[in-house]
Structures are given as C-alpha cells and as structure tokens.
C-alpha cells in the first residue's frame, strides 16, 4: 500500500519542485531536538547546548574519538603535588575577535565557573578546584585534596575570553559568544537555529564546512523526515523504529555508539522486600537484560553488571554478567511468599523509556513480586529518589551519566552512603570508594573499583541494567564518528560530495 502510494506521488514529483531547499555542499545542517538553552559554556549544560558551544570554544583538554584524554588549550600537564596540577598553555591561539588567548584567560575561566555567586550548574564538577594562577605560560590549579578525576573534568572546561566577558557582561556574552574554537558564532535565530561559521585561522584541524546550522526540531519524526527530504545532513536522538525506517535507504545511514550512561534499577536496602539479599538476587535473576537491550531497545545497548561501562576509567572487565533464570527467581520468591508479596513501587519519570520500566515491572511480577509503577514528573521523581531511605520508594529506574567517563562520577553518587542518591550504606564499600576518589595512582584506583564492582555484583546492592547507546541519522556521505561522551565536533567530520 505504501509503495503504491509512494509510486503515485513519485510520478507526480516529476513536476518541478518549486520550493525545495537543500543544504549547499560546503554547509552542514544538523537537526537537534531543541534549541540550545545557552551559548555560555559556563552556564546551563545539556547535550543540545554543548553540541553547539563546544564547537565555538576550546577546552583545557579534550578526548579523541577513542576516548583518550589529549591536550587542547593545555599542551602538557604535570601533577606536581597531591593537590596541584600544572598546565602548559598552548601559544599562538587567538579568539575569534583576533585577540590572543592568554594563560590569564584560563585562570579567569576557572575562577568564573567556580565562583559560587556566578551560579553555574556545573559548579559541582569543578568545585574541588580552590585556586588557579598563571606564571608565564603555565597555569597552576590547586585542588582541596588529591582529585584523580580532575583531568576528566577539564575536558569540559571551556576557555572564555576575559576581555570580552568583562566588557560586555554575562547576558551579552551569552547572546553573542566569542571563543577560540574551530567555528565562530554567527547568528542565533531564537527558537529556530544557531549558525556557526568556520574559523579559518584556527590553530588545529579546520572544519570542512563553511557554515554549520543547528536547528531546533523537537519532533523526532520530523527530524527523520528532514533527513530523508535532504534538508538536514545529521539528526540526533532518534529511536530504533526510526533507525529501522532509515536502514532501507541508500541516501542516509544510521550511526550508533554506546554512551557513558548506565541504566540501573535502584533498590531500597532499608525496606522489605529488598532489604533481604535473597530477594535482591531473585529480582536480578528475573530480569532478562538481553531481552531489554536486543528485544526492546535495539540501538546497540550492552547489558552491564556494574555501575560503570567500558567507556569509564575504573570499569572491571572481569565482573561476570548477571544471569537470567526465571525459574530460579520463582524458586526464591516461592520459598518466601509473604516477603515477595510485599507491595513495592518502582519510581520513574516521563523522561525515561517507559517500555523498559513496564518490562521490568512485568518481569518482576512474573517472578512473584508485587510491583507497581509510580510515575511522577521529573522534579518529583528526583525528590523521591534523593530522599531518605525511609521515605524512598522500594525501587527506582534511572540512567546515570557524569559526563566524565570516570567510575568516580557514577559509582560514588549511587553507592556511597554520603550521597543523597545512594541507598547503600556499607562501610567497606564507602572505604573503597574513598580510596579510589583520593588516590592519584591509577593502579590503586582501578583495584579499588574492581572490588567495588565485585561487591555490588555479589550483594546485589543495586541492579545495573545496560550501557545506553545513542542513535544518529546521517547523510550517507557524512563521516562522523559518534563517541561515548556524545560530542559533536564539526572539525572531526567530513562530507565528500
């Protein structure tokens, strides 16, 4: 039927298309799910914003496509003491207004984002830095103690020009940002698009496109249609159904990459039924993780048995996958019928994929549990999962990303008793997490995380589910390598005709 209709309209398409607009070869049009909230890299951060502004600004460090931390504005670095890191600043870098990027701009950027009054939502990632100073072309960062994740955080610290921000103020800087990146800000048509132009005097790899247009297209079906119609070259946030629809086309392709987001089911260890290790084991046995990743999600997700992924430092490759054995789960719940029948709620929010949440509920109930879903808006959900264990729901679904690719950013908040996200209170686990957080020796840290992941796996303190993946739709001739940190650097792409 679809093909019949399609051939009819294709015949009609012989009429000259009057209005079709198509992107010029040297330009790229990217459809995002929304408008960037801000262009100031020290303000709001979400993928929609940083897809755009990370092309305008250089960061202290960056990750290459393989995920290795490499220099960007800092050419080399040296941990001189437990709490001081010396960065050698690249020379010859200029901002888009022609002024040179000085070490003092790096110091200014660090102080701006760590200034409490500035109110950056990213403060929590940088607040271990207590001081920054410059001498010659060396910038020294002082932390309030050993901070092994500092390098991973500096990958996200963008350098803003002190002379511009101080002259125009935060609002105007947000409206017309000036950075030193491979692309310069050109125009922001509010609600519609942001246009960037190539920085021809960029110190590093120059971008292949003269102009890049990032458009806000909230409806996923419309983004896919734009790609098929040729009005977009790259679209983000599509689901596996849309990917299947694109797979048959020769003009477009689907790109996917595992991200550093780990989906997990949080358990309340203070309340029945999951205060009992046997019941936690039964719940884990009841969950068919492969069924979720390969049957439901189909975007390249990978089942996980730890609160980390191969994209994180601190991943333990030796932790065995969780087994799926419904009969074994039923045997446990059958032996403890009262405990299994204890009503338990699974907290979730609309932002999560409800197919997964419903599948989890179904799998647990099939095994003899009595689970109901409690869906609330995001702030309420966040309130529930961060509340005291006594007020907390028995179960919660969540996806965790620290945007730092270090196990510290994911295992610590979810598992350490100090964190308001954690419902785990195991002194031995706390000690291991603290060791890993305080040591600058990678081997010591890895060893501690190996133990953390094994303990969580053995005791089912929380139930990791899978490493989430991200799907993009792209023109077939666009070369773009999606990465775990969901970056979208224009100067790493190419689009030969």
């Amino acid at each position, binding site marked *: 039927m679809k093909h019949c209709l399609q051939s009819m309209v294709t015949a009609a*398409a012989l009429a000259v298309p009057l209005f079709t607009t198509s992107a010029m070869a040297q330009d790229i049009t990217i459809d995002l799910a929304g408008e960037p909230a*801000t262009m100031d890299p020290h303000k709001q951060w979400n993928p929609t914003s940083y897809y755009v502004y990370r092309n305008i600004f250089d960061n202290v460090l960056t990750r290459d496509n393989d995920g290795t931390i490499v220099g960007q504005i800092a050419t080399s670095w040296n941990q001189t003491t437990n709490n001081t890191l010396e960065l050698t600043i690249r020379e010859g870098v200029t901002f888009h207004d022609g002024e040179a990027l000085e070490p003092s701009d790096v110091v200014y950027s660090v102080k701006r984002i760590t200034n409490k009054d500035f109110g950056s939502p990213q403060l929590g990632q940088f607040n271990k830095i207590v001081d920054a100073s410059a001498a010659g072309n060396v910038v020294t960062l002082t932390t309030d103690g050993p901070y092994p994740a500092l390098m991973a955080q500096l990958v996200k610290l963008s350098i803003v020009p002190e002379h511009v921000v101080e002259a125009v103020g935060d609002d105007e800087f947000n409206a017309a940002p000036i950075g030193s990146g491979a692309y310069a800000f050109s125009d922001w048509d509010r*609600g519609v698009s942001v246009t960037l132009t190539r920085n021809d005097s960029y110190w590093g790899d120059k971008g292949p496109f003269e102009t890049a247009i990032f*458009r806000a297209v909230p409806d996923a079906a*419309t983004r896919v249609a734009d790609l098929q119609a040729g009005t977009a070259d790259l679209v983000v946030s599509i689901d596996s159904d849309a990917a299947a629809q694109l797979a048959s086309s020769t003009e477009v392709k689907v790109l996917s990459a595992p991200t550093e987001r780990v989906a997990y089911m949080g358990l309340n260890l203070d309340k029945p039924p999951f205060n009992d290790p046997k019941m936690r084991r039964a719940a884990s046995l009841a969950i068919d993780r492969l069924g979720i990743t390969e049957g439901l999600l189909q975007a390249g997700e990978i089942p996980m048995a730890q609160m980390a992924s191969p994209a994180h430092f601190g991943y333990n490759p030796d932790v065995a996958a969780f087994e799926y054995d419904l009969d074994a789960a039923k045997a446990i719940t059958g032996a403890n019928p009262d405990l299994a029948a204890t009503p338990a709620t699974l907290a979730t929010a609309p932002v999560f994929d409800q197919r997964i949440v419903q599948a989890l509920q179904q799998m647990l109930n099939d095994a003899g549990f009595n689970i109901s879903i409690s869906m609330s*808006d995001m702030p309420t959900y966040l309130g529930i999962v961060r509340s005291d264990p006594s007020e907390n729901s028995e179960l919660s679904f969540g996806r965790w990303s620290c945007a730092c690719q270090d196990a510290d950013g994911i295992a610590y908040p979810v598992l350490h008793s100090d964190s*308001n996200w954690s419902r785990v209170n195991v002194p031995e686990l706390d000690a291991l997490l603290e060791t890993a957080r305080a040591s600058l020796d990678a081997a010591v840290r890895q060893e501690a995380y190996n133990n953390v992941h094994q303990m969580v796996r053995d005791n089912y303190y929380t139930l990791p589910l899978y490493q989430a993946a991200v799907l993009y739709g792209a023109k077939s001739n666009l070369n773009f390598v999606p990465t775990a940190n969901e970056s979208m650097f224009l100067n790493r792409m190419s689009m030969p005709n």
Partner: protein
Amino acid sequence: MLRFLLQRGGQALIAVFGVVTLVFFIQRLTGDPTALLLPETATQADIEAMRATLGLDRPMWAQYIDFLGDIARFDLGRSFVQNASVWEIIASRIPETLQLAAGALAIALLIGLPLGVLMALTAQKPVSRWTMGLVLACQSMPTFWSGIMMILVFGVWLRWLPSSGTGTFAHLIMPSIALGLLSLATYARITRSAVVDELGKDYVRSARARGVGTGRMVCKHLMRNSLIPIISITALEISQLLAGAVIVETVFAWPGLGLLTVQSIAARDFVVVQAVVLLGAFVTIFANLAADILYSIVDPRVRLSGR
C-alpha cells in the same frame, strides 16, 4: 453602550485575575525546577544555593505578591533557563504564531465558508453528502497525524515543500493547512446550518420571487444574516488555534509560542510558561470581549438584552 462596555470589561478583568492566580499556584504545585537545572551529581547544598539564587526559597505568598506586582507593571521576569528577559523571548515568537494563525484562519475561512454555503444550497444532493464527508474527515484527523502525513508526502516523497522550519512562504503552507483543517470543518458546518436556517425564511422567498439570482442572494442577503454565529465561532476558534499551535508548531519545528510552551514546560521554565499561559488567556478573553462588542454592532438587540 458605555455601560455594556464597562460591564463586559469588568468581567474580562476578573477572568484575567483568576487566570493569573491559577497559573501561579498550579505551576508551583507541580515541582521544583532547580532539580532540573542542576546536573545529577548536584548535592543538596547546590540545590539550596540555586533555589536562593532564583528566589524560590521565599514563602509562597511573598512570591505571589511579588508576582502580582510584576504583572501590574507588565514585568514578566527573566527565564531561569535561557537567561533572558521573558518579554524578549515571547516577543521574538509572537510574529511566528501570528503568521501561522493568520495562515490557518485564512485557509479555514476561504475554504470553510464557501463549502458551508455549498452544502446548504445543495442539501439533499449527493454533492452535499460528499462535501460533508470531506469536512468530517478534516475534523477527525488528529493534527499530529495529518501534519506528519503531509511532511511525508509533500516534503519527503514529492519534495515540493520544505519538511519543517521557517523562513519562506513555502514553509508556511503545510503548517497552516494542518492547523486550519479543524477550524475549516467547524466553519463549514456552522455556515451550513446558519444558511440552511436562513433559506427557510420569508425574505429569501420574497427575494427569489423578485428574481434575485443565487450569487447575489448568498452574498448580499444570506451571508450577512448568518454572520452572528460565524463571529462567535471566530472568537472561539482563535483560542482553538492557539491550542492547536502547540502541536502543529512542534511537528513542523515552527518557532512560535506553541513550541516555546512545549520547550519551557519540558525545561520547567516556570516564568516563561506562566507568561505564555497568561498571554493565551488574555487573547482568549479579549477575543471574546471583541466578539461581544461586534455582536452589539451587528445586532443591537444583543446590547439591549445585556442590560
């Protein structure tokens, strides 16, 4: 007339005050936006600090009184998320929504009214039944579906029209049709029944007896007398169009107030949602006020009965 105006104006003001109050409290009942503004790793102290920065840590009544004062001074505040004045944000979106609403209203009126007249004049004939079927189809298709279908056919397969976005006249065509379809059906049905009513009246028979032709009869006599229900429908349709714009603008990535509403709700940008809802309420209330006044001009009996 003055008394009538004062009475209707007073009612409108009370309605506005009610909406202002409802919007303020309902939004605050649904959750705290700070949780969404901060990364997942934020501590309780970070959250408290952000609440203080945004003034959300003050008692609800104090926030409400400030809010009323701001509204009275036409100060809509600043967006938490976009770090910009709400007036600026809204002002940049209004022209887009007006364009879309005008396009949709034009399609609805220019196609809906003649269809209605056609159905009335051809009542009992197959052509009327066919047209009615078409009108019902327009009314039954959900906008998100008809929008996506149009994008698929005219944007992807035929490539006649841009699949989404804004900028040229061509961009306006599909969203206007998608938004106008429902109103078109309403106009066609209302016009049909109004004209059918009029057709049975004495003056029509007399006019026909005097040899007045169909075209002249429709334009000069029937339409004028069928105007009252059409005016009241237009007042209602304007609010309908604003509501429909939320879906149409999302589907077509049309950067108007509807899309702004969806984005602001998702980001829990209270201040912007508040302002958009207020604006929508103002428009609806004043469209109805304008319709009341128009009735009284078209038909003075309405004014007298208002006393």
